[in-house]
């Protein structure tokens, strides 16, 4: 077994009387595509929110590459290479697709107030070098035709793709995808799976929440199942698929 890059210990989150997340232990191993599945309301998105620090856990700890990041700000975690997408897509509506991508890729230094005020020549050059990568990524995601459209003009599925594209501009080490295939048409889903596999082979670790079970089983090396806030099963796709607890809680018996 390879190294654990993300490690979560007894992470808990309650909403009033509801125990949304109660995860004893969770590890993400280097180089793998891991999928997180489970019924609606199982706590998957909340779990994402907790480990990316978009919400604070009630208790527990999170380690990224052995570094304790339990109290770190969400944007700092993203800078450490853990980048997420959202189940409900969040694109910058009143910016063009191109601008969305450029903003994602631009360096934080260049966004400094003083640097922007003084605006040296190199600033522009440093921005220009992003163009190649933007075009590449947009082509990969079939969005190149929409490059100059406002993001709000995109369809729901295209927004999902844009969000993924934006995350890729950050050169993430860990990519957390919350239902990347939701609303994406079958043909493009196939392509997207290829892309995800490809990204993984380039060394990006992927943790993905997805309800498209065929897709999950096809590309995941490991599947983790959540129900009612807890992890109820964890293992290779075949193992999880035939796990009685998973069939009861999520897959349903007709599936096998």
């Amino acid at each position: 077994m390879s190294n654990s890059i993300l490690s979560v210990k007894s992470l808990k989150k309650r909403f009033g009387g509801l125990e949304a997340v109660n995860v004893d232990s969770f590890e993400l191993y280097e180089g793998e595509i891991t999928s997180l599945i489970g019924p609606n309301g199982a706590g998957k998105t909340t779990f994402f929110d907790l480990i990316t620090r978009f919400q604070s856990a009630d208790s527990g700890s999170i380690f990224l590459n052995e570094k304790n990041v339990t109290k770190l700000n969400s944007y700092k975690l993203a800078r450490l290479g853990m980048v997420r997408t959202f189940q409900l897509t969040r694109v910058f509506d009143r910016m063009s697709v191109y601008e969305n991508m450029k903003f994602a890729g631009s360096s934080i230094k260049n966004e400094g107030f003083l640097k922007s005020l003084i605006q040296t020549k190199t600033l522009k050059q440093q921005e220009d070098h992003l163009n190649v990568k933007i075009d590449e990524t947009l082509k990969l995601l079939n969005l190149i035709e929409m490059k100059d459209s406002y993001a709000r003009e995109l369809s729901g599925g295209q927004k999902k793709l844009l969000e993924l594209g934006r995350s890729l501009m950050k050169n993430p080490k860990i990519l957390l995808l919350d239902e990347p295939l939701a609303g994406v048409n079958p043909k493009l889903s196939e392509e997207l799976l290829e892309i995800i596999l490809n990204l993984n082979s380039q060394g990006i670790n992927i943790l993905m929440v997805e309800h498209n079970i065929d897709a999950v089983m096809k590309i995941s090396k490991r599947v983790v199942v959540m129900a009612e806030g807890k992890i109820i099963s964890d293992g290779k796709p075949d193992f999880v698929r035939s796990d009685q607890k998973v069939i009861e809680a999520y897959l349903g018996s007709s599936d096998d």
Partner: protein
Amino acid sequence: MNKYFTAFIILVLSFFYIFFSNDSGGGRVFVNLLTFAGIYGLAAIGINVHFGWTGLLNFGHAAFMGIGAYTTVLLIPHSLGREGVVISTGLPLPLAIILGLIASALLGLLLGLPTLRLRGDYLAIVTIAAAEIFRLLVRDFEDLTGGVYGIIQFSDSLQNSRPDFITQFSENYNISSAQLWVGLLTWFSIVFVLIILARLKKSPWGRALRAVREDEDAVRALGKNAVLLKLQSFMLGAAIGGLSGIFLVFNYGTVQASTFVPVLTFYVWAALILGGVGSLGGPALGAVIFWVIIAGTDTISRFLFESPDGQQLAGVRFVIVGLLIMFCMIFKPSGILGDKEELLLDVK
């Protein structure tokens, strides 16, 4: 119709209006309107950085304007309070102004730090409260601020710098040279501020602010410090507000507890909404239109009351400006220069 053409027509009409609606010296009224328009315009530009660029709701602009003004005025020679205690020494005016702007920005920092982490509405509430607290503090700390008696005789620091030809020109056309000087400086400042803002708007920083306005969480997810960006924007807009406050008190020649009241903020917002949220020049144009309308409402007041007192004037102003904003929001919500896409009253 092209929006710039609309703006141009409105401006031309207002000029005609100003010159022909007054028998008592059109020039004087003209300079008065233009000066106030410049001051409100500058203030509206500050709010535009907050709201138009970043999506921050600031309903306490009067406080930022006030703290800048009081800081500057107290640092230059002035005469204070009921007894008119004369303080004849002070800093050079440019330095005092810079410190005034810094004071405004620091108030922005103070209010922003605890609230900008929270949802947008908190900032709105805190700024409303802060403006009221500021007004009460100014009123009650009479030893420092002169309270309701205020501060007078500080204008020389500015008027000493007035070139002779302005004085000459004013005499020829029977207008107030002091006001003309303040008005000119205000409009120069607007041009200067707009040049800087135009630069910032298309810079990576400006783009980041727009992203914050659209979706703060997405900004965070991309590793950018949204709170810092909001704080910077808040401080910048506050400082611009401070500058307008400084010009406001130099225009009056006095400052007292009643100068920076909540209705000032309301009027500045009105100017911003009329001109167009988000666009660079919109707020200044909106302020010109706003002041032409104010002049118009005073004419209406004279129809309604034989010789309207200050309170009646203010009442009529208030009603008409309110109606106007309503109509503007219904029929042209993006303002006159604004981009339709720009105005979305959603606050993150």
